[in-house]
């Protein structure tokens, strides 16, 4: 069964350091999402890609966060510098292009701890 792949599963970093997460969506899925899930809360959308283009990054803290999907396939989310408040689960998801009625498929997430 096709899955969304994310790495690493866990990451511990010191504040002010840079950290990066990687996501490989299900093959053929043109839409890719990065969500942040703070403990005890629901996932919150950070950025949405359609192919290689950013569709929505209104909730992305652009002073420290960046995301790219250069070839419209896999994607990288970067934080620089990391802050204590960035500790959360970072989830990647994908859906088929243009099909709003389809469910999003999620990866297992990257648990980030900033110390």
């Amino acid at each position: 069964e096709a899955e969304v792949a994310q790495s690493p599963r866990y990451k511990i970093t010191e504040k002010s350091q840079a950290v990066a997460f990687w996501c490989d969506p299900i093959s053929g899925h043109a839409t890719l999402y990065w969500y942040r899930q703070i403990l005890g809360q629901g996932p919150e959308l950070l950025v949405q890609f359609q192919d290689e283009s950013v569709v929505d990054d209104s909730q992305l803290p652009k002073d420290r966060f960046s995301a790219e999907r250069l070839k419209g396939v896999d994607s990288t989310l970067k934080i620089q510098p990391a802050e204590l408040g960035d500790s959360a689960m970072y989830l990647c998801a994908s859906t088929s292009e243009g099909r709003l009625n389809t469910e999003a498929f999620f990866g297992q997430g990257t648990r980030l701890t900033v110390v």
Partner: protein
Amino acid sequence: AQSVAQPEDQVNVAEGNPLTVKCTYSVSGNPYLFWYVQYPNRGLQFLLKYITGDNLVKGSYGFEAEFNKSQTSFHLKKPSALVSDSALYFCAVRDPRWGGATNKLIFGTGTLLAVQP
């Protein structure tokens, strides 16, 4: 703006009893509604969805949900709970009308289901 509410932080039920996890939504048009389940340190797994048609939708692992437009609700149900159903459950809504910024999927804050043996 679209939103979704899960009024219960936690639901406790005995194994074998029916369970209900509540969800209400706010969307101007006809919503697309989803339920996901999350086990500890894992991503979200899709359970079921309502797009159109029959108000009662059936999903994975024996779960079902009923769409009620007048009450703007989409409660998750299961006739007989299992201990293995214990997890965090999220309701999500999407406004499919063109013009919404990205027709983004908005999640509730989650409900922890605890099934006691």
